């Protein structure tokens, strides 16, 4: 659905140096998946998205979007995609119906058909009861749903969503995830950017992690996490028992801390009973034990040396 080779873009400001926002990326997004672009703010996610949506011209590289060549046929790309910007895009004084009808008609849909479509998507996004109210009166979550409804009114095969849940409360976010999954289940390919680890993990079928204009890792969230070798079992102890426990557990790769040990294991669920048996046999009292599975943040940490949670601050 999306294929890019060596796509790049740099910005030159009048003062200061040229910034390489996107440094030649290769992407392959399959039809019918939710593909996520994960990375901290300023990683180049939005720039990439805006290039793919024909809003800015790449400096170099090739891209095929929904079967149309990005550089030779941007008009054709526009007809086939939907794009929802981060900041939203409605006139305060318009109503949702007016916005949707206009948007559909800009894609060449007849007036009657545009009204029918507007009614349909308002219904699908549970916005019917607000349909005739001005956009300025909507809550953040409602406004976001109107934005997405605007992005799909012409029934594109591919939808770009830039940070679709930024600024939403947890309930609206969960609701939005449901909407995005529904679109995927209806056969649409959805390309989102996000700086939320949980969102990339829970929502996306596949992700690419982006940092400083480069893709540092790609794959399903599960495969990326598996690529971080093994899991960590954290054993909490009273300080006086730490060295004794370390001796007992010498067969494991262990880091000692003041009141705990961190054991690197391949399969935590299999290792924990063994650890408990060894400690029990040596009469080392245990304060606590927990299994830590690698998160996407550990993936980011391994690839970039920084934590995404810290970078996002």
């Amino acid at each position: 659905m999306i294929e890019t080779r060596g796509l790049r873009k740099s910005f030159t400001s009048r003062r200061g140096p040229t910034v390489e926002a996107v440094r030649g990326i290769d992407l392959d997004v399959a039809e019918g998946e939710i593909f996520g672009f994960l990375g901290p703010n300023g990683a180049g996610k939005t720039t990439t998205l805006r290039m793919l949506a024909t809003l800015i011209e790449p400096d170099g590289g090739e891209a095929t979007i929904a079967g149309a060549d990005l550089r030779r046929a941007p008009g054709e790309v526009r007809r086939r995609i939907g794009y929802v910007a981060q900041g939203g895009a409605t006139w305060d004084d318009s109503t949702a119906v007016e916005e949707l009808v206009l948007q559909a008609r800009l894609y060449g849909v007849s007036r009657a058909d545009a009204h029918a479509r507007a009614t349909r998507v308002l219904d699908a996004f549970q916005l019917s009861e607000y349909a005739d109210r001005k956009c300025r009166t909507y809550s953040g979550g409602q406004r976001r749903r109107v934005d997405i409804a605007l992005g799909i009114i012409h029934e594109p095969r591919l939808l770009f969503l830039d940070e679709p849940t930024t600024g939403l409360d947890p309930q609206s976010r969960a609701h939005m995830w449901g909407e995005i999954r529904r679109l995927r289940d209806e056969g649409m390919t959805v390309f989102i950017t996000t700086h939320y680890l949980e969102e990339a993990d829970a929502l996306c079928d596949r992700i690419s992690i982006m940092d400083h204009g480069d893709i540092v890792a790609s794959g399903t969230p599960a495969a990326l996490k598996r690529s971080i070798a093994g899991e960590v079992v954290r054993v909490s102890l009273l300080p006086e028992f730490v060295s004794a426990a370390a001796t007992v557990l010498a067969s494991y790769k262990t880091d000692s801390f003041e009141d705990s040990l961190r054991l690197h294991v391949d399969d935590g669920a299999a290792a924990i009973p063994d650890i408990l048996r060894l400690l029990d046999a040596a009469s080392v009292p245990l304060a606590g034990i927990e299994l830590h599975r690698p998160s996407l943040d550990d993936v980011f940490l391994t690839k970039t040396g920084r934590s995404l949670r810290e970078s996002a601050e």
Partner: protein
Amino acid sequence: MKFVRDTWLIFENQMRLLLRNPVWVLVGVFQPVMYLLLFAPLLRPALQVSTDAEAYEIFVPGMLVMLAIFGGLFQGFGLIAELRAGVIERSRVTPVSRLALLLGRTLRDVVSLVAQAVIITLLALIFDLRVFLGNLLLAYLMLALIALMTSALSYGVALRVRSEDALAPLMNTVAQPVLLLSGILLPLTYAPGWLQNVAEWNPFSWAVDGTRALFRGDLGAPEVWQGLAITAVLAVLAVVWAAREFARSVR
């Protein structure tokens, strides 16, 4: 065909939004009405004409041109608000014609300008202004072309500077000399020779002369076709330039 349809869609939407707050059209007429009521009475003695009607014949056309220039030049502010709301970007990812994005907006500005001009003309009729309908319609055409030009320019500049803080001083700097060098407030026949020579180069001074000739009932005067031709050419150039700004990919 698609271009005409696109332009109509943008125009229709813009008109709908404008009519939702029609008070802005009235706010636009406020300044010229003030001139009409508080400045024009000084003109009969100042211009040394015998009747109020003659004074208005000279003053009203100038004021209408001023309204078209200023009204147009400040339309860019609305566009900056739309840029900020993201609606321009939303339009740019649709296959809509870029020229239509511009033309739909400038046509709305032309319609609102002509509506304002009608209000002012009607008010001036109360003050004994008399003008032939045919001439008046030609004068409105002149005003429409001026508004088309200035609002297109304003949109193009707004797309470049992208901030109200930069647009306001820029437009004022342009508008003030243009206004003073076009003989809008007083005809340039009173000006010293060097000032008249400078004003020759101001297209709006030709437009003002043409509009005055029309209000005078002098349809055959060369100022009429000269003014119309100059404003038409400049309006086309401004629209072409601004439409290119719309199409240009910017960040």
